[in-house]
């Protein structure tokens, strides 16, 4: 059972508080009317399904109710990093081995608060208690 670092609560929590929500970084086509049926089918149903590094979205359903991203190895189940919505992973299939050695845990930046309000940037800078 996973132990997941919630990038919003800033601590490790039990998997039971979370729910997986599929592949991360999916983007809904900006102008759906202009995409073909095939492209729309791809957006709806076709997902990455790698053996190894996978970026996926989870929601802290019974905690802070925020969605966030996890980089996880789908074979070893090791979680390599968790990061907030709007952030990009620092570990990818391309650099995983290097970063793994560096022991990267979580990324920085991104929007701490839904709505990406600049006034909250100070909150982001605070270190966890």
């Amino acid at each position, binding site marked *: 059972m996973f132990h997941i670092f919630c990038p*919003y609560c*800033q601590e490790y*929590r039990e998997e039971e*508080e979370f729910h997986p929500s599929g592949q991360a970084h999916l983007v809904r086509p900006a102008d759906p009317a202009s995409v073909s049926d095939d492209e729309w089918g791809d957006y709806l149903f076709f997902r990455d399904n790698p053996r190894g590094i996978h970026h996926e979205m989870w929601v802290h359903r019974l905690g802070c109710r925020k969605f966030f991203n996890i980089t996880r190895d789908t074979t070893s189940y090791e979680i390599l990093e968790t990061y907030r919505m709007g952030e990009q992973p620092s570990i990818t299939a391309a650099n995983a081995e290097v970063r793994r050695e560096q022991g990267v845990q979580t990324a920085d930046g991104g929007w701490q608060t839904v709505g990406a*309000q600049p*006034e909250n940037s100070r*909150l982001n800078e*605070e270190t*966890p208690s």
Partner: protein
Amino acid sequence: MSEAHSEASVGNAATFDTHPGADAGVTPESPLQWSRVQGHVTEEGGAAEQIRVVERPFLGHLVLRGGAITLDEAVRAELGVSLPGKPLGLVLDAEGSRSVQWVSPDEWLVIVPAGEEFELENRLRARLGDAHFAIVNVGGGQTLLELSGEKARELLMKSVVYDVHEHGLPVGKAVGTVFAKTSVVLRRPTEARFELVVRRSFADYCVRWLRDAGREYGLRVESASP
């Protein structure tokens, strides 16, 4: 807009005093009313009573949403405590009867004595003006249970997945977590007690669970209903 919406629309949102007032002769029922009828509340814990569960019904519960900086000023001005900006923070006022709790990066739970919430909401709204925020009154939807006694921690270990040891849950911390097959807000306001904020419709389940899990320690459930 008709006059029926007269109280509404501070900052284009509708506020609403849900209380009939003391002179209306209306008796509220706590979320544990049915549990009380079923005999799950007010019971002797027996000679070995090591846990006490007390319901604090009818408190004012407000959810504040918005940017921390904006809300902080308003809350400080109106409640005299600063908004916990760090994750999972819980602060109480000097009397210990008003609290503000971090729920998520843009969400806080404020709990105040019964009847204060509507006034507080209006004052906060007035102070926040045009900023983007939300205040939601949820007082009818949840109730607060206090847990104290020698075995309270063990009872919680049976019930929640969160680490309730001093290291995991020191005074001044509050978390949303799994409780049996539902979720609660678990708070540590003082050394002597834990608090559970439970949803109304799950309150009976939570109390039945606590009674069952606490039976071996001797457990008493009562309501501080006025």
